[in-house]
């Protein structure tokens, strides 16, 4: 198997990861596709030098998240934007309304987090261990715990604020 075949195999196995990162950092289909392609390209560029130095997913998340940050600059978008209609365009036909609403809510909440928290929450929701989150993000394991607690608190505050507005 040559290097292009190996790369194709790895990418196909982790295509969901790329899609989810692209969806988190864009707010329309065109940008999302652009970012998706750019991530694949950046992964290919560094694939030769990666060669199993860390877990494949660690390397992929790192490249994907870093590419996403620079994509914000490329599109001259505000740094705090986030997709609100993610999934709707591709899955609307098959998703039931309730599920879609939950995903909309999920993205609406993530929108209020800063860039670092957004990366951490993505990895947390992906079920990554604190060790792996620390390795990808570049903070200590204990700091991961602290940050997640802070995010939890932030989310609670958001809910309280919303309830206060409705009441």
């Amino acid at each position, binding site marked *: 198997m040559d290097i*292009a075949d190996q790369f*194709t195999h790895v990418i*196909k196995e982790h*295509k969901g990861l*790329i*899609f*989810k990162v692209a969806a988190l950092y864009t707010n329309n289909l065109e940008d999302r*596709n*652009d970012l*998706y*392609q*750019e991530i*694949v*390209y*950046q992964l*290919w*560029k*560094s694939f030769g*030098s*990666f060669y199993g130095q860390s877990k494949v997913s660690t390397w992929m998340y*790192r*490249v994907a*998240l*870093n*590419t996403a*940050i*620079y994509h*914000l*600059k*490329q599109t001259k978008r*505000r*740094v*705090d934007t986030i997709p609100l209609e*993610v*999934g709707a365009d591709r*899955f609307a036909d*098959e*998703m039931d309304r309730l599920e879609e609403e*939950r*995903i909309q*809510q*999920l993205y609406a*909440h993530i929108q209020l987090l*800063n*860039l*670092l928290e957004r*990366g951490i929450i993505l990895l*947390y*929701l*992906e079920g990554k261990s604190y060790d792996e989150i620390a*390795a*990808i*993000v*570049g*903070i200590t394991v204990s700091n991961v715990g602290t940050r*997640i607690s802070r*995010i*939890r608190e932030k*989310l609670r505050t958001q*809910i309280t604020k919303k309830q206060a507005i409705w009441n």
Partner: protein
Amino acid sequence: MELEEMQNAWNSLSHRVERQDALSNKLLANVTQQNYQSKFNKVRYSEFAGTMVCYAGAAYLSVHLTQIEDVFAQVLAALAIGLLLLLPVISLASVRALKSVNISSASYLETIHTFGRQKIRFQKLQKINVCLGLLLMLLTLPVLAAIQGKDLSQVPYFWILIFPLFGLVMTAFAYWVLKSYNKTLHDMENQLTDING
């Protein structure tokens, strides 16, 4: 929505994502066969066009410099040529700085910091560019008149009304543009402070 609820919603999304096929074989083939043009390294047409306009302007003024008889207008022309050569350099340097990043080796936090610092530097350079650009517009007015052999002092109210008014409009425009740059700078600085907190 609590983290646990978010986790459930995320899992639903993950299941859906795995079933869709956003990754085409064509994209993979393009990427691995070097047919893909990364947007990261692409100099935008506007940047290229801007550079060409500036250099064409500098060339025009240089060619016609000998036609200018008035010493004051000659000094203004020399300044304008200098600015026309300098503006694209500042602009392209600031854009290039934003593109010099190692995506694969830096951690996410390092990338956020690098991006933030570069963005702040970019905004500051753009602010300088806006000010210099407006200064250039003021300078070229008497210079172009001198090249065409027109005496601006013969134009009624030129120096006492038209030129100051033009300067005033330019200053107001600069204020408006810089205000927008300052807001972006402020947002970015806040983001970095928030992240470090």
